[in-house]
């Protein structure tokens, strides 16, 4: 075997020697050539054909590309990448996590991009919440009173098309709301301005029928029953106990989401439940009532549950002999009621008035006028 010197393959061999080896000078007078290793690497690339390119030059480039990609990717990964997505607003904030009845405000960074709204926890690299903007159905500002500080703060409530309600709090909630709405209108997305929840009580009269009087009312979460493809979930609203019925106003849809006449209520209990695999146990008010299908339970969660329980049980303890009464349906709305109640008081739901009651009312009106 003869050694070779001048073939292409030996070039790298030569360069290894000329650039990295040779006599070493130990003297102060030597010029320090910090750049040499770098020159060496580049030079190898310059001199090399494809095979050595792979070893040096292309590897350098590849390395750079990899790093660039990693940098790019990492940046996006933080908010789970969508190519070409642009961040419009970024703000510290928190997200009201309400899986089941476990609730907590979880801190994170709120990102409003041109496509999505994201709450991201940087330390855990976890997306707490995200939604495409077009999935937002309604937006509301909620004034929440902090129990301990008695200070009010604004929360941004989003009603999603899926029916879920999301509550966010940001460093500047109003700014976030503005930016969100601005972006949504730029995208041509329609949304409902759900009236602020604080203004809610002014509306309550609208669903209380004539002669109906609210005994108790308060903010209350309700476990809605599954509807269609929607699973049961906890929704925010207000619970009202009137002299006629127990009803729950669903804040985001702006309508009564649950109602039962008082005489259907069998009882209520407050219990601690652990609905989800979260460590926190929460108090839940279970109202037991009966309908055509038998006994049912409606669950509520909120404050002062024991007062609700007391109020409800008082009503149940009243000697209402519901079972002995004849059931009938309202001829106008078809809802169930008691025959004598329908006749004497009309329908509590739609305001239908029986001919007998109408005569009575007319008579009393005339009496009043005469006086």
């Amino acid at each position, binding site marked *: 075997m003869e050694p070779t010197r001048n073939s292409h393959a030996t070039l790298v061999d*030569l360069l290894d020697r000329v650039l990295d*080896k040779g*006599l070493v000078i130990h003297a102060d*007078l030597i010029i320090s050539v910090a750049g040499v290793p770098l020159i060496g690497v580049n*030079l190898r690339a*310059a001199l090399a054909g494809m095979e050595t390119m792979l070893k040096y030059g292309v590897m350098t480039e590849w390395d750079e590309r990899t790093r660039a990609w990693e940098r790019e990717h990492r940046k996006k990964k933080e908010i789970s990448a969508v190519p070409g997505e642009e961040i419009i607003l970024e703000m510290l904030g928190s997200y009201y996590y309400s899986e089941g009845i476990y609730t907590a405000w979880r801190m994170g960074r709120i990102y409003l991009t041109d496509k999505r709204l994201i709450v991201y926890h940087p330390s855990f690299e976890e997306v707490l919440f995200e939604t495409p903007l077009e999935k937002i159905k309604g937006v509301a500002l909620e004034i929440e009173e902090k129990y301990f500080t008695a200070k009010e703060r604004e929360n941004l409530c989003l009603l999603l098309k899926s029916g879920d309600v999301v509550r966010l709090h940001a460093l500047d909630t109003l700014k976030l709301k503005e930016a969100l709405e601005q972006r949504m209108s730029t995208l041509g997305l329609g949304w409902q301005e759900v009236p602020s929840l604080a203004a809610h009580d002014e509306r309550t009269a609208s669903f209380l029928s004539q002669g109906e009087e609210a005994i108790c009312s308060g903010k209350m979460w309700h476990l809605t029953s599954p509807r269609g493809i929607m699973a049961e979930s906890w929704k925010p609203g207000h619970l009202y106990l009137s002299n006629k019925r127990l009803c729950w106003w669903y804040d985001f849809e702006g309508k009564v989401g649950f109602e039962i006449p008082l005489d259907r209520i069998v009882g209520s209990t407050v219990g601690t439940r652990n609905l989800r695999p979260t460590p926190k146990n929460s108090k839940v008010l279970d109202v037991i009532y009966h309908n055509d299908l038998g006994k049912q339970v409606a669950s509520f969660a909120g404050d002062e549950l024991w007062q609700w329980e007391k109020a409800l049980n008082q009503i149940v303890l009243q000697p209402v002999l519901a079972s002995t009464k004849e059931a009938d349906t309202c001829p106008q709305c078809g809802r169930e009621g008691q025959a004598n109640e329908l006749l004497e008081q009309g329908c509590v739901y739609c305001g239908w008035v029986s001919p007998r009651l109408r005569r009575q009312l007319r008579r009393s009106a005339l009496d009043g006028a005469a006086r």
Partner: protein
Amino acid sequence: MQYSDKTEVASRAEAIEEQGRYLYCVVDSGEKVSFGEIGIEGKEVYAILYRDICAVVHNCPAQPYRSDDQEVVKAWVMTHQKVVDAAWERWGTVLPLSFDTIIKGETEGSAERNVQDWLKQEYEGLKSKIEKVRGKAEYGVQVFWDAKVIAENLTRTSPEIRKLDEEIRLKPRGLAYMYRQRLENLIKREMESKADECFKDFYSRIRKHADDIRVEKTKKAEQGLQMIMNLSCLVYKDRYTELGEELDKINQLEGFSVRFTGPWPPYSFVGGA
């Protein structure tokens, strides 16, 4: 008067500019000789003497050669090698320096003195290095194997691998996958020990034909070939044929190939103290 002032300034500027000496190599010759303008960027290459040794240099500014243009750097390095080769051819023995080694001077003309001082200071060491490499050249020996061929051979010869390979055939698909992972690991381990074994074997065979030997880092695989051995061998110029014959034997082994380069100036054997 004015005119002569100007030339004085110009020559001083030139002197400042040339306050470095770029070193190519050290040879054992007391001969004051000029090679002509064969140096980097056409500089005149000449020898700076101290007793019976000399440094082959050219005059340059006291700053390293640097360029972003790789073609330029390439030309520099090739020129460096050509100058070393020319000196090597002329005197038969050289101590080559690596590219871009420059000795500077603080004042006019002191660079040359600094080179001489360095030669004086290092005289004994340089002399013994010269003696070490006299009449010898450096050769590069790189042994490659075709990983695929070696792995196949191992599968045939290693009882452990063969057993596992046979077991896989009898396993259902899911389990076979697991077993294949194990097989791969086993082959990898066997390959590693095989490589160690080959290294020991080849090294002892090559060592016999070399005056000195340096084990260099192996390079990454190229075209399916893995470098399992990278040596620099210092060999008497007239004895490289014996090394070549030994390498032939290795080259003929199935799956192995050898790259034999040289003769190079003894770059790998002049470094260190």
